[in-house]
């Protein structure tokens, strides 16, 4: 990430550097979007659906998504399941431990706005978007594997629409 952050600024000094930057941008973003490794992170019901999505019938691996156990090597954290007030600092910590570029999918109602635990619950964090920035929301309780796959495909599209200059250090 370090080199790439400064790359456009350096390249554009040369004649024809702009072309190099745009073609480089395409390759890099394609690479990023086509190899999204997700963190094995599941707290509640959605984790079972996450497991099913990785299993034979739905198969995450088709999209090039494999799981990593350590946050350092993963690009995507699928917050599958309720995040309680006790868990919230841990989620933030996991997010902080991930290497950039990193993405978050909020899977299920609980992570979006507390879901079925919005009312009358003293322990549930009402939405994870004030703990970590969320890229894709997938509603459902729990969402079906198809919707999770769809969400991941949307995420890939979203990654491809980025600009290399967005990452540049200011």
């Amino acid at each position, binding site marked *: 990430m370090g080199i790439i952050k400064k790359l456009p600024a350096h390249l554009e000094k040369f004649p024809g550097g702009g072309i190099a930057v745009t073609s480089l941008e395409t390759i890099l973003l394609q690479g990023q979007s086509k190899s999204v490794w997700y963190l094995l992170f599941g707290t509640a019901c959605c984790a079972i659906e996450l497991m099913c999505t990785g299993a034979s019938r739905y198969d995450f691996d088709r999209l090039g998504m494999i799981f990593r156990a350590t946050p350092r090597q993963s690009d995507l954290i699928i917050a599958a399941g309720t995040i309680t007030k*006790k868990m919230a600092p841990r989620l933030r910590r996991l997010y902080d431990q991930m290497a950039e570029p990193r993405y978050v999918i909020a899977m299920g109602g609980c992570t979006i706005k507390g879901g079925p635990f*919005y*009312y*009358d619950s*003293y*322990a549930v964090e009402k939405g994870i978007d004030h703990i970590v920035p969320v890229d894709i929301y997938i509603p459902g309780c729990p969402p079906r594997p198809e919707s999770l796959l769809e969400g991941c495909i949307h995420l890939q599209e979203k990654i491809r629409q980025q600009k290399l200059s967005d990452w540049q250090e200011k």
Partner: protein
Amino acid sequence: MTRDELKDYITKQFEGKMTLLDTGRHDPMFEVKPADLLEVSQKLHDDENLQLDFLCNLGAVDTGEIFEAVYSLDSTTLKMRLDFKLILPRDGAEVESVQKIWPGANWFEREMWELYGINILNHDNLKRFLLPDDWDQGHPMRKDWDAPDFIRMPEL
């Protein structure tokens, strides 16, 4: 023993210590005075004809005026069930720990202490465990508990 025989047996054996309540809908429900808890529990656990060696459940109830601690027992050998409860005052509720008799009561009692604020005497590990470590909003399972971010479900 059928349920009726059990009721008779208990009222005979534990005269004055356990009184039969009519609120138990499926299994017999008795009331025990907090002071008698340890003695009664030990006897229930050791009695040849009861052998209630399995603590199914232990939970507190807040009715608004009083606390109750409900013990659900089971015998793995004689296959019968029995419930009893303690009536505790709402402020300064204290109950003796039964983990010497049923070690599994440990966590149930911790939970009572944490969520209801019922003090457990002679408990070996009375530490916070369900709520966040920095929780400072009291005992959330009490009926009169409230907090700024606690939203009640509107009546339909």
